[in-house]
């Protein structure tokens, strides 16, 4: 995913030609972009996946080119935020060439966009993508006739299966060669020009299609029809969806947790039998800082990389298959009653990977009430950074079987918190936004694609986790050891004081001073929580076995309360920042943070006090 926080303004390099990829949502723009350049754009069978600009460099027949991947647009005059991004881009950035991507099998309606671009007088080139689907569905296109009538070069390609990419490169280079460098044009008066020509457009489309395209007499996508009969079944559709999700998480858990434990043990061995002897001659506080701080923190978290990889492989399959849009269809009736719509549900699902791109994804919504309400619920999605904390705690405090139930319960609670939030606040963020959503055909995810995706996610996680952990470890280590001369992590140290300070608030929910420090740092990012716990407890535990140290001081009831709080309070500073930039409202951002803290405290309080009443601790 492109976890960019601010809208990336495009950087123009003098002497380089700028080529923009324009097309309707879900036509394969990001796929083409990824295939042509070394960059990694997020791909999925869901209209509206890309909501921001992304650029990368490539060299075409000796000429250096900036390729820009744009969000999909239905209409150059559309008014959702992602369409506005494209319009602003075209109005402000000089482009040498516009590559128009159309889904060949849906050329009957997508041709409109090509005509709109042509009306603007931009130098353009048409790529008809998904040649494989057009063939499968029986859509025949006479390329020469189409090119002649459009007065633009037209090529048939299949970006996903790498067909026709060579010709596409060559055609782009040729079109660029025709224009001298630095001759890029911006569009002036985009709106009025399009409005004026609107009627001609409809009139022009018919004859072109008639002359150049043959459509099948009958709809041929038997696979999609057959799958939809079950997956969208009025009664069975929803149970099937829930079952698929439950099985997916079960599989990740069953495969991932043993891997995590084996890797964790390996890293532990390495630290104890290789690293510790090697550092024996170092000053004790320094070697302790390295083994019990950095290595323990990073090691504990990196043991989760396989789980995260598996998780994103599974997400990749779901996203690429086209099932997300079906989920939107199935859940829309329910979400409507919460003041949301099917898209909010899908974005919440994406939030299980990472909240940040999910919040950016709300740009496809036009009504601000709907957008804000969606932004309010997405942070409750149990993201992969939180998942590793829970997997770890569950493995320390519970048997594998109970652990699986605890994790499942946390997922349910994550939905519960979203539902409750929506119900409470739907009155304040009302919207009447109509919902019209494409249901793309089912597509077979290809292994290289989902593999690359999962790999990019793991790299991303690892990069941030490492940074945050180093930062967190240093920070917590300092808090534990300052002011000079105190016993590490004792009540007199800064961390002890901080913990004690918050005790009146956190003691009623079972969070002791040490856990408090982890939670405070977790506000920055959940990747720190586990690394932080490793430092806090690792420093005091002689053996370095974090789990034992934790379990000897914390009861399972406290652990569950800690997990509940971790699930519900502010996910991370990046999420807060992106809510701020997307909502453009400080008040709303503060409200969102405050509400999640209040809810987290209330839920933990109820659980902890009830557990006390029942006599569990």
């Amino acid at each position, binding site marked *: 995913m492109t976890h960019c926080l601010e809208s990336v303004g495009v950087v123009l390099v003098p002497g380089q030609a700028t080529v923009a990829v324009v097309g309707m949502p879900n036509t394969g723009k990001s796929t083409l972009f990824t295939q042509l350049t070394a960059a990694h754009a997020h791909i999925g069978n869901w209209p509206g996946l890309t909501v921001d600009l992304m650029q990368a460099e490539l060299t075409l027949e000796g000429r250096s080119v900036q390729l820009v991947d744009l969000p999909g647009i*239905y209409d150059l005059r*559309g008014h959702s935020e992602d369409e506005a991004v494209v319009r602003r881009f075209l109005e402000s950035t000089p482009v040498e060439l516009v590559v128009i991507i159309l889904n060949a099998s849906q*050329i009957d309606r997508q041709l409109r966009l090509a005509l709109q671009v042509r009306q603007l007088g931009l130098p353009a080139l048409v790529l008809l993508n998904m040649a494989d689907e057009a063939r499968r569905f029986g859509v025949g296109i006479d390329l020469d006739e189409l090119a002649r009538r459009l007065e633009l070069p037209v090529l048939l390609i299949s970006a996903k299966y790498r067909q026709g990419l060579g010709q596409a490169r060559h055609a782009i280079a040729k079109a660029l060669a025709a224009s001298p460098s630095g001759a890029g044009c911006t569009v002036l008066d985009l709106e009025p020009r399009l409005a004026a020509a609107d009627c001609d457009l409809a009139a022009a489309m018919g004859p072109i299609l008639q002359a150049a395209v043959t459509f099948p007499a009958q709809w041929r996508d038997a696979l999609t029809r057959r799958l*939809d009969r079950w997956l969208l079944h*009025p009664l069975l559709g929803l149970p099937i969806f829930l079952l698929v999700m439950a099985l997916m998480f079960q599989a990740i858990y069953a495969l991932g947790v043993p891997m995590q434990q084996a890797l964790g043990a390996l890293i532990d061995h390495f630290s104890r039998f290789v690293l510790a002897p090697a550092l024996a001659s170092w000053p004790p506080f320094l070697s302790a800082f390295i083994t019990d701080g950095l290595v323990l923190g990073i090691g504990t978290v990196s043991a989760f990389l396989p789980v995260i990889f598996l998780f994103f492989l599974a997400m990749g399959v779901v996203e690429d298959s086209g099932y997300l849009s079906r989920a939107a269809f199935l859940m*829309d009736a329910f979400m409507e009653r919460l003041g949301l719509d099917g898209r909010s549900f899908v974005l919440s699902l994406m939030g299980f990977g990472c909240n940040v791109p999910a919040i950016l994804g709300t740009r496809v919504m036009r009504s601000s009430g709907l957008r804000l309400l969606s932004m309010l619920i997405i942070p409750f999605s149990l993201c992969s950074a939180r998942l590793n904390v829970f997997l770890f705690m569950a493995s320390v405090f519970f048997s594998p079987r109970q652990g699986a139930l605890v994790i499942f319960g946390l997922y349910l609670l994550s939905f519960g918190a979203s539902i409750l939030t929506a119900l409470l606040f739907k009155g304040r963020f009302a919207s009447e936004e109509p919902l019209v959503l*494409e249901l793309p055909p089912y597509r077979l995810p290809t292994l290289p694609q989902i593999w690359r995706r999962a790999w990019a996610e793991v790299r991303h996680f690892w990069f941030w986790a490492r940074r945050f952990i180093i930062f967190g470890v240093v920070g917590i280590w300092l808090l534990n050891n300052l002011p000079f001369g105190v016993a590490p992590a004792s009540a007199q140290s800064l961390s002890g004081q901080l913990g004690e300070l918050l005790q009146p608030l956190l003691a009623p929910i079972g969070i002791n001073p040490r856990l408090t420090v982890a939670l405070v740092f977790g506000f920055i990012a959940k990747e720190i929580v586990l690394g932080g716990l490793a430092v806090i407890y690792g420093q005091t535990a002689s053996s370095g076995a974090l789990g034992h140290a934790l379990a000897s001081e914390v009861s399972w009831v406290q652990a569950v309360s800690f997990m509940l709080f971790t699930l519900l309070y502010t996910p991370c500073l990046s999420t807060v920042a992106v809510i701020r930039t997307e909502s453009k409202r400080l008040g709303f951002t503060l409200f969102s943070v405050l509400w999640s803290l209040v809810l987290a405290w209330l839920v933990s309080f109820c659980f902890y006090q009830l557990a006390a009443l029942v006599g569990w601790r």
Partner: protein
Amino acid sequence: MVTALTVEAGLRHRLEALGIKPGQQVKVLRRGWWSGPIHLRVGMTELMLRQIDAARIEVHSADPSRVPR
């Protein structure tokens, strides 16, 4: 067959971009549970639409036994 779109401009543009415009054949494939959205096919595209929005699309039915509302 669609005869008219009585919707605000923003939605009309979106519908037209998806292929729903006067003179176009649409086919209702199914309806969601709990009065959920309807599943349509228009030309080579399938899409979903909420019932209240669909109600603003005036159609004239080709097959009287299946009148899409």
